[in-house]
């Protein structure tokens, strides 16, 4: 039987694997998309202690290599269910079933979609969740950014460097982002703020995005803005619903657990962005990974 199954090969999951292997436990990580998690899109990380500057891809690859060199196994399978049979946990993936002694849920978070009907179909056809990845394809075109946090403001600033025009669509008139950055953006000639409005429709032409419908929060008035691209930056969202039977979730869908990374179920732990916490960063994900792995090892010792 596998000692520890880790769900998610992001920073939290890979760090957990490093600690589990160094404690002499077998560790298998399941990953649904690509190892590395959310950070692989980020061109520059400048706040990880001990590393002044590194790209997300390099960071993720170094972490992956460190974990696998220590003997952790990464399997590209999506976990669909976990069941608790006491001393043994059953983990079901889209390819098979695996038994283990302890489970660490390190499922992270994903870009939050707007939730509009044709949104999924338009990804890669005008709708994007990553300005630094896809911005270059909108050179000299008109685009919109939806959101009011730091990511939205940074995305708009980045896009304004080479797009003809950038609309910033925000559902309120106050910003969560740094005031200084917002002011700087307001000073740019090709940036227009569209405030107190929600994006309520995606208009397509021949399968590509050609405009967005926005609805005024107060008057309910609908207007259409012609854009070739929409960058959605309205935060992250977890997806822990398949695991609600072994881990209680809060209103936002995050796994309820304190700094000890324990869920309500013996032998099931959680780590990283998927857990209720105030700071979601690489450092806190790595920290959780260590705590959860050592707690899992302690639990296995007690069996």
């Amino acid at each position: 039987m596998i000692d520890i199954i880790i769900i998610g090969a992001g920073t939290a999951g890979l760090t957990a694997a490093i600690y589990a292997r160094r404690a002499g436990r077998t560790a298998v990580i399941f990953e649904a998309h690509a190892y590395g998690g959310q950070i692989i899109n980020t061109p520059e990380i400048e706040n990880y202690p001990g590393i002044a500057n590194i790209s997300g891809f390099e960071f993720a690859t170094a972490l992956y290599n460190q974990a696998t060199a220590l003997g952790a196994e990464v399997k590209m399978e999506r976990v669909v269910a976990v069941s608790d049979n006491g001393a043994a946990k059953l983990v079901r993936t889209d390819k098979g079933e695996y038994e283990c002694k302890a489970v660490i849920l390190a499922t992270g978070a994903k870009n939050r979609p707007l939730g509009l009907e044709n949104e999924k179909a338009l990804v890669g056809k005008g709708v994007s969740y990553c300005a630094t990845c896809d911005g270059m394809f909108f050179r000299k075109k008109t685009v919109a950014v939806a959101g009011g946090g730091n990511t939205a403001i940074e995305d708009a600033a980045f896009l304004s460097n080479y797009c003809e025009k950038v609309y910033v669509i925000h559902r309120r008139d106050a910003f969560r982002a740094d005031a200084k950055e917002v002011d700087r953006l307001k000073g740019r000639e090709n940036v227009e703020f569209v405030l107190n409005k929600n994006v309520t429709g995606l208009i397509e032409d021949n399968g590509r995005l050609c405009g967005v419908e926005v609805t005024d929060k107060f008057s309910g008035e609908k207007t259409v803005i012609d854009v070739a691209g929409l960058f959605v930056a309205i935060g992250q969202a977890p997806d822990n619903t398949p695991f609600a039977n072994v881990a209680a979730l809060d209103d936002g869908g995050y796994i309820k657990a304190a700094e000890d990374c324990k869920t309500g179920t013996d032998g099931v732990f959680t780590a990283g962005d998927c857990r209720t916490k105030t700071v979601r960063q690489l450092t806190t994900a790595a920290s959780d990974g260590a705590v959860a792995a050592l707690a899992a090892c302690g639990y296995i010792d007690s069996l």
Partner: protein
Amino acid sequence: MAVTVVTNANFESEVLAADKPVIVDFWASWCGPCKMLSPVVEEISNTEDSVKVCSVNVDDEMELAEKFGISSIPTLLVFKNGQLANQSVGVIGKDQILQLTK
């Protein structure tokens, strides 16, 4: 077989005129997820004789990227008998890639 590097100049002969399904990987050096997908695509080029695998660097071949309306990378396009048959955006697994060619 290895991955064939495709440009605007040889697209017709390498992709459209190919005698088997062609997977075309649109990528760039600054794109992290692209660097994760490319090794998988390369592996397919070495193990699957029934498909041809090509790559397009979008920084060098903006015209090709525009021609196919690429606005997010990595994007995989699959061509059969000179026609665009399937496409996919983002990092996906080997099984899913091969499914696109079916």
